[in-house]
């Protein structure tokens, strides 16, 4: 779902997951968005696993169709009777609904590392948005144009600012096997800010910046 809103002085587009193809086609590079709803995290291990093991949709506990995949390796602590549970315990204990997971910090990680997997993941699982940093390559851009998906650039390193826009951690998958940074986490976010830098029309702000900087580099190298 998409609606216009005013955030600060700048107009931002409010988007709510799950996203439809029409929602995504309404976005273009340079747009500021505020994301609300459920999003899932996934980085190197998740992508490698999805690509190689090709798990069926019902083997993944979260519905990825129309969802936003966040390239993020968070710091999470678990509260139970004790104030804090050690990271070792977090890795070995099974999660249950009685425990409260707390997101300490959770900014974006560099997206280009999963370039070899992402086009397949977008096509196979119906992802409509990718949140990350640094942008992605031409193969992902093509898959986004083909399927209707956008790249949402988050603020690199703004880990506590962004963690404060995650209302809660709903669940996690592959926590023990992949470890805390690499597990797939299901977050509920509210007004999570990002900038559309690759749209579903084949435009990429990253490609534009690279072209400009290449021209400037040529001048400097003479």
């Amino acid at each position, binding site marked *: 779902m998409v609606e216009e809103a005013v955030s600060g002085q*700048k107009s931002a587009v409010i988007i709510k997951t799950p996203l439809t193809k029409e929602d995504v086609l309404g976005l273009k590079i*340079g747009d500021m968005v505020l994301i609300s709803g459920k999003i899932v995290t996934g980085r190197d*291990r998740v992508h490698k696993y999805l690509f190689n093991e090709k798990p069926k949709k019902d083997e993944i506990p979260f519905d990825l169709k129309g969802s936003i995949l966040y390239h*993020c*390796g*968070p*710091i999470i*602590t678990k509260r139970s009777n004790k104030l*804090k549970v*050690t*990271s*070792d315990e977090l*890795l070995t204990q099974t999660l249950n609904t009685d425990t409260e997971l707390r997101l*300490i*910090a*959770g*900014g974006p*990680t*560099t*997206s*280009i*590392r999963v370039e070899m997997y992402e086009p397949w993941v977008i096509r196979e699982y119906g992802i409509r948005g990718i949140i990350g*940093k*640094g*942008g992605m390559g031409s193969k992902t851009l093509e898959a986004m144009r083909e399927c209707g998906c956008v790249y949402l*650039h988050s*603020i*690199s*390193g*703004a*880990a*506590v*600012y962004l*963690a*404060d826009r995650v209302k809660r951690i709903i669940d996690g998958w592959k926590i023990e096997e*992949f*470890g*805390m*940074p*690499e597990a797939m986490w299901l977050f509920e976010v509210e007004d999570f*800010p990002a*900038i559309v*830098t690759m749209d579903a029309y084949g435009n990429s*702000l*990253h490609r534009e*910046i*690279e072209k*400009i*900087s*290449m021209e*400037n*580099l040529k001048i*400097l*190298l*003479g």
Partner: protein
Amino acid sequence: MLKLRDGIVELYKKVATSIPPDVVVALKNAHEAEDGLAKESLGIILENINTARQSERPVCQDTGIPVFHVRMPRGLSQNGMKATIIDATVIATEKVPLRPNAVDILTDRNSGNNTGAGFPVIYIEEVSEDRLRIDLMLKGAGCENAGQTYKLPIEELNAQRDLDGVRRCVLDAVFKAQGRACPPYTIGVGIGGAKDQVSILAKHQLFRRITEISEIPEIAALESRLLNEINSLSIGPMGLGGKTTAIGVKVGTNHRHPASYFVEISVSCWANRRGRLIW
């Protein structure tokens, strides 16, 4: 050495949850100079730095690979120092908390406490002073991945074996990094003749304050020229365009072999997290 261990835990906490004052000043100056998306991004970064410090949470979720540079008075045990650092690392991982980042190459298992083979990275040197000095850097991996090694000469860059050749390598490395390593960057450069040595030298430059200028006039001139030229690439904060791609360039030199001329570039993200403990 129980007290020293607690001191190192505190050092971890300080380095993870705050940004050095000289870096904050440079980011504020960049915020002043920019407009549009670049200004907005830097505004959020500055707010993030404040929130992290006030709430005592890590500035960035990637608390990185810890790099220690220890200057130790004669007579102290290196093995003892390493054991103390490792103990402190395990405690800090839970207490700060740090993100567990040490992954076994063969099993892909995360050790869960930031210790493992060669993890954390510890360099120890003996000094003639009687004070113990421990420098810690939490080096984010997104920017660590943007590092490059060059072997001069390189025809494609018209880079010969001189400081102009070095300049060309640095510009090429920053161009290749684009916005993927969280600009505005601090760039560490190491020049010399042994490949392993220039890597360490480049990384050690990132311990220098942003305001510190090289004592060698030719190198100081190169640092200043490179900073201007990197910023004229227009990659900008977040890599989305702008005037500030780097806030500092620091160059270190070693003697080289007649046959070798290595140039190493170590990139730090804007969150150049470093701190010092004097004991």
